[in-house]
């Protein structure tokens, strides 16, 4: 039994792997996994854009938001991608530092609760982080109240997950130098910390904790897709930290016109209409058809918190140390 006997099998695999052939021009969009999945916005957006561009729009999934940036850094200037879609404001400073992005040049009337002025990164959706619990449970009304309570929560690790990093920034923005105290208070509430959002949400649905860090829009999923109104997001007095998801055009694209067309398409009806019920976030530009009815029942935070990208990047390391010290006791 020599290794030669295995070669046909491996060669066969290689043949299977090279399937899709290009039509005329190809626009490659690097994005996160859940955007591309058959449940995500990817398929509908691909169909809508290909209808008008006479091109082949290809989405390439690369893990979550953070993995997406790492992937781009690994590929470097010779990347095949024309557009990167799915970074958030905690990552844009590092993304800008790669010097791989070009100005997007899109003017749009954004419906974000904050002012947006960034000529490289264009928001395509946004949301508020929130703890999601079961309807009927006693809901704490602030981060402080949560820390003082004995409510159990599952959170994501800020070292490996973007929502986890969002919570870190939420506590830091709301409490500044007292953030360490809040984390010490939260330590006995945290049942466990997971590497990513999926594991945490799965544990919550299995009843491992009273609440999970997710988004204010999560209950809308359960209402619309499962007709289940038993999940609610808790409104906190300190305000809620935002996640703004952005797209950027790569300077090295070999399809600059097509890329510009797609950047403009991002803030148009065809893209934005799909977002609420596939990505379960707020669209960056409210579509003409409006938001789904279930979105009207969601909580509206008293204040939208968001650190400017440079400040978020500077604070991250010290905030991480505080978090680790408080939860390691």
């Amino acid at each position, binding site marked *: 039994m020599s290794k030669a006997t295995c070669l046909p099998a491996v060669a066969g695999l*290689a043949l299977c792997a090279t399937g899709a052939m290009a039509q005329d021009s190809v626009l490659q969009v690097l994005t996160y996994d859940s955007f591309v999945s058959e449940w995500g916005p990817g398929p509908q957006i691909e169909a809508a854009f290909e209808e008008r561009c006479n091109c082949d729009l290809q989405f390439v999934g690369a893990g979550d938001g953070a993995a997406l940036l790492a992937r781009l850094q690994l590929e470097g200037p010779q990347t095949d991608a024309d557009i990167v879609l799915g970074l958030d404001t905690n990552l844009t400073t590092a993304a800008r530092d790669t010097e791989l992005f070009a100005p997007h040049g899109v003017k749009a009337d954004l419906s974000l609760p904050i002012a947006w002025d960034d000529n490289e990164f264009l928001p395509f959706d946004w949301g508020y982080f929130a703890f999601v619990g079961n309807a009927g449970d006693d809901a704490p009304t602030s981060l402080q109240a949560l820390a003082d309570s004995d409510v159990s929560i599952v959170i994501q690790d800020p070292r*490996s997950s973007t929502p986890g990093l969002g919570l870190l920034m939420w506590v830091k923005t709301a409490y500044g130098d007292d953030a360490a105290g809040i984390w010490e208070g939260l330590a006995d509430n945290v049942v466990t910390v*997971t590497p990513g959002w999926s594991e945490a949400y799965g544990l919550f649905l299995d009843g491992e904790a009273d609440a999970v860090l997710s988004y204010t829009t999560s209950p809308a999923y359960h209402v619309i897709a499962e007709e289940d109104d038993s999940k609610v997001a808790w409104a906190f007095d300190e305000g809620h930290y935002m996640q703004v998801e952005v797209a950027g055009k790569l300077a090295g694209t070999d399809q600059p016109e097509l890329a510009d067309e797609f950047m403009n398409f991002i803030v148009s009806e065809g893209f934005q209409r799909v977002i609420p019920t596939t990505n379960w976030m707020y669209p960056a530009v409210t579509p003409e058809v409006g938001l789904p009815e279930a979105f009207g029942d969601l909580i509206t935070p008293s204040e939208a918190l968001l650190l400017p990208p440079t400040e978020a990047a500077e604070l991250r390391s010290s905030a991480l140390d505080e978090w680790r010290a408080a939860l390691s006791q």
Partner: protein
Amino acid sequence: MARSPVAIIAPRWPGGASAALVLLLTFGTLAAVAWQAEWVGGLSTGDWAAVRFTLVQAFVSAAVSVVLAVPVARALARRQFRGRGILITLLGAPFILPVIVAVIALLAVFGRNGVLNDVMVWIGLPRVTIYGFHGVVLAHVFLNLPLATRLLLQGWLSIPAERFRLAATLNADVRRLLEWPMLRATAPNAFLVIFVICLTSFATALILGGGPRATTVELAIYQALRFDFDLGRAALLACVQFGLCAAATVLVWRIAARAEMGAGLDRVVQRWDRAPLALDAIAIALCAGFLIVPLGMIVLRGAPHVADLTAPVWWAAGRSLLVASASACLCVCMALSLALWGGRVAAFVGVLPLAASSLVVGTGLFLIVYPFVRPAEVALPVTALTNATLALPFALHSIAPSVAAIQDDFGRLAMSLNMRRWTWVRLVVLPRMRRPLGFAAGLAAALSMGDLGVITLFAGNAQETLPLAMYRLMGAYQMDQAAAAALLLLALSLLLFWICDRGGRVGAEM
């Protein structure tokens, strides 16, 4: 594993080629990552805390797994009962599960809302919590006890029937004369394998450890690669992991004795030493319960939703089967060639992939491949190749002792017949190795089925494997479908394992 004087009979070049491939995928990928790094500072205090935690949890997890496996393996070795074969196959299940499925299964039993706590509340006892150091150990024992049991069981089965017969004739103590020397030889190696597996644990340790206390080196590598894009720190941490593995390997080689059981005529083992049946029954029942109840939870949760699985998930399953088969074939060829090569180099190369961080391997491969082809185009072949290499230590573990024994027992005879190299492999080695070869192929196939390492970095949509599809379903709120995909994954892995393992046992009374 000193080189036997007759090892020279076997052809050498396949072993050399396999070793080169392993070195490329472990040290080569590490070098590729280090090459691209901008070196800014060394390891932080947090990193060293992660090293300490990693070492302690791996040591305790491996020790507990091996100690608990002794009574179970002995019971399985000396008892015949209905369902024994199925039980032994099922024993492979937890080990080959993707981590997240295993964690969910464990939490369904031991979690806050799990079966155990339901029972505790029902009989009026306080709830127990699984999260903490004990949770990490529990999960690692769940994942590795079956492996330890299988490795020790192979040890028991390698004692020729003639030895037991002789011991019975002499009315000698089987435990002291046969079983203890066999354990001295196999247990340290089983400990080593599990210790090194636990060294590279990441999600299991974090989720069940209940927070950043349970930070392992692999998590630190993940952070360095994905969040900080600090390739230098990732490479340093990977070196630390290799260093720990090398130290453990050398230590175990000093401790482990070599069993000298001699040749047998492959008779069916009969035992004359009468041990109390109750003890064996309890050992088997406890172990089976500990392993099968969580697996049952996967079946219960997934079964109602299997019909809802969409076509892309079935396609992904097909791709996984293809990758797993290729990986198993390649892995067995590599393991056999390394075993025939023999010697300490082959043995070391055989442990090396265990210590490799799959994140570093993936990133390094990506850096090596990227200038030449689009990663998605080679996603499946690269995954098959990497999976074969990562499963190599287990395959080698199951094959090497048999090859060494065959060389010791029949090598002189073959040399006196002036047997040619390939003839020796074809006529003497392969026919006598059906059982370990089948087991090795099954293990490699099943491990490859559940792997979620390199593929995450390489695959586009058209190359999605079943574990990746399952993970993406979870990320899109589709928890029910994900549960069904997990069940499908469990079933297919076990099926592959069973087919290979059964194939190896045809005509042999195990």
